[in-house]
């Protein structure tokens, strides 16, 4: 690589290891100035680590990174910033109680005195110039996710950034928000900023990027390749690799975001017996997110109902209300025809409720406890507290169950925290997906999992449906919802605002998510 002016970023033999895990394995790649570049790969492929290396957050054990011809020492955010690199994180880092102007000033250079008015004028001008339609006086917490992201990007561009890295910027956006973001990115390109997008949907790559590079298992599969004339299916093969089991067309499309699945109807919906019915459920507002308002929802036997919506629109309250973990102010919850509005979660579980909670590591497992204890918790709760148990017997049962679910582990006494995300989720599945289940709630069950584990979870949910279970499937990824669900409802501000049946239409569901006319 000669001192070429057209190259903005050049990496040579970059390797990063976390303990035994190889996050990046001798990655050599260079990106041209003035284009929109995409880096894709499944979860755990090393995308985020790559973004962190380039922005100086992670020092590679090996290799070099050059920005515009100058070599980066590595491991210093300031050096990277000096060289013109800015990273916008996956999860936003703006202080919620700050005004936009304060948040913009926070971390910007210059320690001189300023007035509130001066600050607001200065940053309002900057926001207007970037076409971000947000008042500099507004508090961060009052902004929508799209606006917060726009402010983050504007903040990253304060210091004449030449290379802007966005780490999975579409993960939190509705489809409409994503296309707005892409327009914003194109305008940045016109202003001469090189943009590096970390993405995991092929559709989005093809929609916005000029080049694409694929990472898999920490290695660079290929890239940068021009996206003009690029075939989505070829890209999907590069992302998945040959190791993953054969996937059928719709699953494969949903996993890589190559095309939007339309879903299919499995049985006549009308004559399904309901296993769960919510009538006019309101929850009391608490610190755990948006409360429910007058939610009606019916789930039939052998039906997967997808709950779509931008995160934080009451999905947590819905799951907690069905579990009896949220205070229900009005309305009723029925399981299998019986009113369980006043029942505890233990009683609801007795009646056949099974839950895969949102937070695998906090709500699903006790990471420092042995696997067999994690696995047997539900079973033990069905008995009186002082009943005698046989730990040897429980270990045996646990081992049998984990083996049946193909969990990779050394022994049942090892702490749950020592498993990878996919294996940890399988432990939860082995606990929750038993024959006696009547209604399964799967809340973001594939978040952070790689393709193999994701397909495994889908298969488990389909099997549950096949047994006649009702399934409530909450996800912020519309592709997988469309692929799996027999029916989709959309949540917005704690209400169910729309309901769709196959074939699903991305535009219309997306519009409902943001409150535009459905």
């Amino acid at each position, binding site marked *: 690589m000669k001192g070429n002016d057209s190259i903005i970023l050049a990496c040579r033999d970059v390797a990063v290891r976390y303990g035994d895990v190889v996050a990046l394995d001798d990655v050599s790649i260079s990106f041209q100035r003035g284009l929109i570049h995409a880096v894709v790969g499944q979860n755990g492929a090393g995308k985020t680590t790559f973004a962190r290396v380039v922005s100086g957050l992670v020092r590679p054990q090996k290799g070099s990174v050059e920005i515009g011809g100058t070599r980066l020492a590595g491991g210093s955010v300031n050096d990277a910033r000096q060289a013109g690199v800015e990273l916008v994180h996956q999860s936003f880092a703006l202080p919620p109680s700050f005004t936009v102007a304060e948040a913009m000033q926070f971390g910007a250079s210059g320690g001189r005195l300023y007035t509130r008015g001066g600050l607001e004028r200065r940053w309002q001008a900057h926001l207007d110039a970037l076409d971000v339609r947000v008042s500099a006086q507004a508090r961060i917490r009052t902004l929508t996710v799209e606006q917060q992201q726009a402010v983050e990007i504007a903040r990253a561009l304060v210091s004449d950034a030449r290379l802007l890295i966005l780490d999975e910027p579409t993960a939190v956006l509705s489809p409409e928000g994503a296309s707005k973001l892409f327009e914003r990115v194109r305008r940045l390109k016109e202003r001469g900023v090189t943009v590096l997008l970390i993405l995991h949907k092929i559709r989005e790559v093809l929609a916005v990027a000029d080049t694409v590079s694929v990472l898999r298992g920490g290695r660079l599969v290929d890239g940068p390749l021009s996206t003009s004339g690029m075939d989505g299916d070829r890209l999907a093969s590069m992302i998945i690799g040959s190791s993953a089991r054969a996937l059928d067309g719709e699953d494969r499309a949903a996993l890589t975001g190559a095309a939007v699945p339309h879903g299919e109807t499995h049985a006549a919906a009308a004559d399904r017996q309901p296993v769960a019915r919510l009538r006019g459920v309101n929850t009391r507002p608490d610190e755990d997110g948006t409360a429910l308002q007058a939610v009606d929802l019916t789930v039939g036997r052998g039906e997967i109902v997808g709950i779509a919506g931008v995160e934080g629109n009451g999905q947590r309250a819905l799951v907690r209300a069905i579990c009896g973990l949220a205070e229900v102010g009005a309305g009723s919850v029925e399981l299998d025809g019986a009113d369980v509005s006043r029942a505890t*979660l233990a009683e609801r579980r007795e009646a056949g409720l099974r839950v895969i909670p949102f937070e695998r590591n906090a709500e*699903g497992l006790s990471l420092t406890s042995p696997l067999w204890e994690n696995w047997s918790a539900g079973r033990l709760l069905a008995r009186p507290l002082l009943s005698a148990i046989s730990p040897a017997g429980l270990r045996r049962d646990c081992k049998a169950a984990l083996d049946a679910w193909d969990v990779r582990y050394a022994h049942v006494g090892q702490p749950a925290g020592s498993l990878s995300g996919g294996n940890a989720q399988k432990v939860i599945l082995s606990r929750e997906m038993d024959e006696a289940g009547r209604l399964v709630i799967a809340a973001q069950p594939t978040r952070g999992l790689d393709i193999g584990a994701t397909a495994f979870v889908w298969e488990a949910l389909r099997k549950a449906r096949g047994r006649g279970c009702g399934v409530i499937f909450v996800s912020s990824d519309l592709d997988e919802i469309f692929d799996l669900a027999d029916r989709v409802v959309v949540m917005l501000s704690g209400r169910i605002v729309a309901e769709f049946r196959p074939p699903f239409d991305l535009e219309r569901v997306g519009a409902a998510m943001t409150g535009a006319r459905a």
Partner: protein
Amino acid sequence: MSDSLAAIVRAILFIVLALAMCGVIFEFAGYSAPQMFQSIVDGAFLRRNALEHALRWALPLFITATGIVISFRAGYFNIGAQGQFYVGAICAAFVAEWLRGYPAAMVIPLCFAAGMTGGALWALWPGLLRLRSGADEVITTLMGNFLAGLLLVYVTAGPLKDPSGSGQQASSRPLEAAYRISASSGVSPTIIGIAALVGIAMWWLVNRTAFGVLSGLSGRNPTMVRWQGASTWKIGLASFLVSGALAGLAGTIELMGPNGRLAGGFLPAHGFTAVLIALVAGLSITGAAIVAFFFGGLASAALYLPVMAGLPSAAIDIINAAIALFITARSRFIDRVTKAWRRPWTTS
């Protein structure tokens, strides 16, 4: 299995380190460290009757420590064993005084019942405050210790005051001889039997009941247990009550065994030493039995330090404190290591 073995080895290592540090400190303070260690070993384990003396301290400490194991495992840092120990002894003393003259076969069981109830009640209010309104039990149980200490002073100088007593320290009238469960040596078949019974029952509770597994899980991650449908409230309250009752039981044993009367401010370090035992034992009941015996030996050596090495008997408190320092520093350190080790898995 190898995990618990490693834990024991580590605990022993840290005790040795703590002792070495104390040796250096005493050496600099002008005492002879070798002589100190010699007298500790002699006083604790080699001297004639040393075993009996070590047991005298170890048995009540073990009983209190098992209770602490129960509450710590459930994630509640009840460090109010000292107060629960005092209130247990006070309640038992009241019953013994009120029923003076009644047959021992009736009074002794009632005293035990009263002592355990008293200890449990002294753990109940911090438990309720914690579970109902989230008041930090470390603060409330610690304050409870001071309140119970003052209550003891009041009781021994007031309602239960021995009118014939002329010493500087107020105390109650001696118990009727028939109500004593041991001589002042503090070791008797009754006390050994009670300790063994408690040990077996608590071992069973921790290792062979649903409560044991669920309380361990909820101590490590209450959120997960709640999502499984458990009432963490029930588990929490039960652990507070059990640990309080056992501290109260130890208080009753001290009253009706070796002490024979209630004295203002007696055994002021009992509860804290028991906390230390539970921590050194890695919150295992079997471990607590071994560690309690070790600390019993240290306590019995305390009486011989001034004679043999010219050290103040408070030297034992310094050694205890040093061990506490090393043990708590250890768990923080281990936490950090395990977290660093978990991180790559959980964020991938």
